């Protein structure tokens, strides 16, 4: 079976790749493009570890076909830091020790960034509901929520 040729944009860079028709975007990112920041926790859209944005929408890349990326704008965790300078969310996750094993962290950072772009001043409850699809088996979530709130305050200039 011939592979599908896809033209897309990933973290602002024009990118092309070949994929199988039934290959999820997550596999394309990790196995073909070597962008291994996005993780496969479940592969069925339950855990959020593979979160990316597609045309500005937060999605699970395990539930998107690579072929669907044609003409789309994808952002991944690899596009979050500016060179050596961490995004405020990344810095606050380190300061608050909001990660342990780290598998869920890229997805949570991508999801939290998508939230703060929509709402720079979310309540704790809003953050918890927004991140309900990002499972973490280590931290118990409190440090993650604190880090997001602190990053939001800093980004607002508070």
């Amino acid at each position, binding site marked *: 079976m011939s592979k599908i040729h896809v033209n897309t944009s990933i973290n602002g860079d024009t990118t092309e790749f070949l994929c199988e*028709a*039934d290959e999820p975007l997550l596999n394309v990112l990790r196995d073909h493009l070597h962008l291994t920041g996005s993780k496969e926790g479940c592969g069925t859209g339950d855990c959020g570890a593979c979160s990316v944005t597609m045309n500005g929408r*937060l*999605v699970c890349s395990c539930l998107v076909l690579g072929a669907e990326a044609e003409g789309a704008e994808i952002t991944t965790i690899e596009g979050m830091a500016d060179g050596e300078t961490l995004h405020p969310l990344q810095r606050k996750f380190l300061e608050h020790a909001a990660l342990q094993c780290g598998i869920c962290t890229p997805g949570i950072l991508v*999801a939290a960034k998508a939230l703060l772009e929509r709402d720079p001043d979310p309540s704790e409850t809003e953050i918890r509901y927004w991140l*309900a*699809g990002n499972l973490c088996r280590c931290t118990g979530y409190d440090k993650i929520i604190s880090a997001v709130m602190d990053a939001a305050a800093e980004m607002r200039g508070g």
Partner: protein
Amino acid sequence: MQYAAPKSTAEAARMLADAKGVARVLAGGTDLLVQMKSGLIEPDLVVDIKAIDGMRTITQEAGGYRIGAAVSGAELGEHAGVRALWPGVVEALELVGSTQIQGRCTLAGNLCNASPAADSVPAMVAAEATVRVIGPDGARDCPVQAIPTGPGKTSLARGEFVASIHLPARPAHASDAYLRFIPRTEMDIAVCSAGVSLVLDRNGTCQTARVALGAVAATVLLVKDAAAALVGTKLDNAALDALASAASAAATPIDDKRGTVAFRKEVAGVLARRAAVIAQQRAGSEKGADT
């Protein structure tokens, strides 16, 4: 497996009709890709309908809204017009899955996946929504409740797919609401659910009602006795008791790990009652309700 992204509904219908083996429609993919991953289905052809005009748009039509089959929960929730006209339908779809799932999941997909516990389906049935089906012979319209015929089964013929859903116009002093029971606050499948749509007169007396229940039968139930209990009343306690009794009596659920028959029957009545009260409050708080 082959992947195709046709540009027209006619082309999509032809591909689905001519496919050798198993063909599936892809809109949001939040059920399809999970079923492929688990090996439940192994499609020979997946037809992505998102490149077709109208699949990703919401347009005003006949005083209501036509919602393309690939409009996501997030997009529907951001549409002020639909949210104002049919808040119960919007809140029902918004209960499906996480933020990530909301970025992709659709009303049409929730309907065609044909889960008895689908959240948006009782709300759409209560709203008397209609479905535009495209097939090899052209387009036809049918009521939402005609699509699911059992768990995972639909009435769609080979080559047919749902292209859009129409939420109708609504008179003044009317609204809807949807509630479900889950044992937590987020990210779960309905144990039991109820959608209620009401039309009141200027004095608050119920003119017409539609009550639909989810997850208490193989398909969504439209409970006419429950609706009849509200008509001609101002939703006093006696009317709400009669509504709840009728809803509980109509429910024919199964026992499973998420709930028992007795629990689901009881909760069907409770949710129908609470949803009716919310719909009444929304209808009564409309601008001009007291004039």
